[in-house]
């Protein structure tokens, strides 16, 4: 039994191969290779403009790959199909809840998009809200909730249809430290206990645990990937903040010495 995601026999839920995307002349992603590991809290780090949202939109099916592809369970996803989308939960960076409707109405709407009956939806909504301590907010309008509660509702909604893969795009922006910690702890717990695969895009590094697989995206390319503490060690930096700061500094290539990416077979490649 292996618990190291970067060992050869660890399963990848999503394998991104040679993926590129341009907006006109602006190249957002450049021949990206990246594995999203099953049952792990996969952290996608990068400063603003690194290409995180583009990758996120590609994986959500809101953009189509212009070059390269991603595989879901070894099946190429040129156009994400219903089976993929039925197993995908998404929390977008901006709130996508209807502010004038109640928490319950918003969640029922989402359940209907996934073909749930009222009864099934009711039981799932109660279950998810209870887990996030929101059960007595079901009749409140979303407008009346604070930022942290709204985020929790969004997470409950994204997990309502019991997806195996949950993507969150900068889900903790604007939240206070304790709420951020609670949310990441909660999702780490669900990864460990239920095998949920999480893709967590962020620029806030304190949300990542030392054993999480991390990929550092910079200017559309994977600059580092590996287990969080290993990446820090390989890059010869104090922590991930330091790494991001050095990458975004204009003299980045000179300051970083041991930059490496690890691929799925456990070998390492020089990336800079």
């Amino acid at each position: 039994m292996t618990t190291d995601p970067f060992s050869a026999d660890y399963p990848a839920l999503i394998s991104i191969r040679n993926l590129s995307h341009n907006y006109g002349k602006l190249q957002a992603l450049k021949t990206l290779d990246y594995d999203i590991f099953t049952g792990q809290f996969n952290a996608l780090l990068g400063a603003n403009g690194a290409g995180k949202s583009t990758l996120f939109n590609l994986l959500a099916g809101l953009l189509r790959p212009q070059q390269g592809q991603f595989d879901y369970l070894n099946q190429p996803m040129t156009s994400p199909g219903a089976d993929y989308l039925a197993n995908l939960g998404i929390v977008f960076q901006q709130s996508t809840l209807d502010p004038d409707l109640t928490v319950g109405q918003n969640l029922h709407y989402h359940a209907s998009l996934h073909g749930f009956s009222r009864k099934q939806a009711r039981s799932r909504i109660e279950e998810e809200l209870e887990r996030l301590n929101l059960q007595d907010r079901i009749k409140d309008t979303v407008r009346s909730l604070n930022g942290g509660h709204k985020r929790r509702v969004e997470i409950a909604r994204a997990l309502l249809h019991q997806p195996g893969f949950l993507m969150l795009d900068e889900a903790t922006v604007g939240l206070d430290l304790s709420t951020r910690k609670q949310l990441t702890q909660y999702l780490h717990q669900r990864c460990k206990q239920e095998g949920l695969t999480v893709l967590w895009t962020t620029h806030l590094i304190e949300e990542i645990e030392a054993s999480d697989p991390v990929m550092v995206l910079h200017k559309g390319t994977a600059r580092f990937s590996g287990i969080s503490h290993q990446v820090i060690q390989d890059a010869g930096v104090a922590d991930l903040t330091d790494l991001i700061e050095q990458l975004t500094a204009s003299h980045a290539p000179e300051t970083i010495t041991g930059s490496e990416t690890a691929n799925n077979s456990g070998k390492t490649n020089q990336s800079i």
Partner: protein
Amino acid sequence: MSSDSATVPASKQSPHASKQSLPASRQSPTAFQQASPTFRPPSEVSPLIRQWQPGVIGYWRTFTGITQREFLRFIQQRTRFFSALIRPLLWLIVFAAGFRAVLGVSIMPPYGTYITYQVYIAPGLIAMIILFNAMQSALSMVYDREMGSMKVLLTSPQPRSFLLFSKLMATALVALPQIYAFLLIAWFVDVDPPWSGYLAVLPACLLVSLMLGSIGLFISSFIRQLENFAGVMNFVIFPMFFLSSALYPLWKMQEAGPVLYAICTANPFTHAVELIRFSLYGELDITSLALVFAITLAFLTLAVLSFDPQKGILRNKKR
């Protein structure tokens, strides 16, 4: 159905939490309630694969869910109901009353006798209610797209064409209470079609609403900003309404000039108005029906294509 056929691991089935004395969400921020205690090492975890088999019932549930949301939003925005009603009533009661003396309308199908101007413009005003409703809804999709709730719709597993059709149909159904409220008030100013007309106008209104909704949806895919509703008013709603048979019969337009007549005949809104006019008097205008149906199909196809991720929605959006 998706959740029926779900492969749910044992650990997912019972997310229990012990009951606590205080309402949990009112408590101080501690960690959320513990999930099931069953630990599954990552290597033993197989991806949770659910076969997506919605079936007819799944489609129906999605459709009713989308419709319900539209109605809930409509109820939330009560002012929208009144403004949607005030506009055609002003035309009916103020404008038409003034023009009644100037414009006599002679006997023409589907009317069996001389009619007042109010009776003539009532179907056009029904079409106007639908036009505003459809355009407002299409524009709200621009808003939804900016705010992201359209992304939620587009990342759900049902086919995109079905989702957009459901959204348009929901908009069409939301317009119905407005139309019947208008017809009720119009009855007091002697617009009294036969009772069969009140029923026959319903499918006609739904079809017209689908047509105008898909035109609106197509136009909205080119609009990047919400503020452009003023532009839509000037360049879409007003020309469509005035260059049609809503306010004047086509033969009057023909008298005014061949160019004006040609434009009015080519305007899809003219055929929408005529379809509603005939159905309100229990008759079927086959030409209008065929044209409205064909235009609906064409624009629905264009609208669905414009929401293709490669071509529409996020086409020019920077990361």
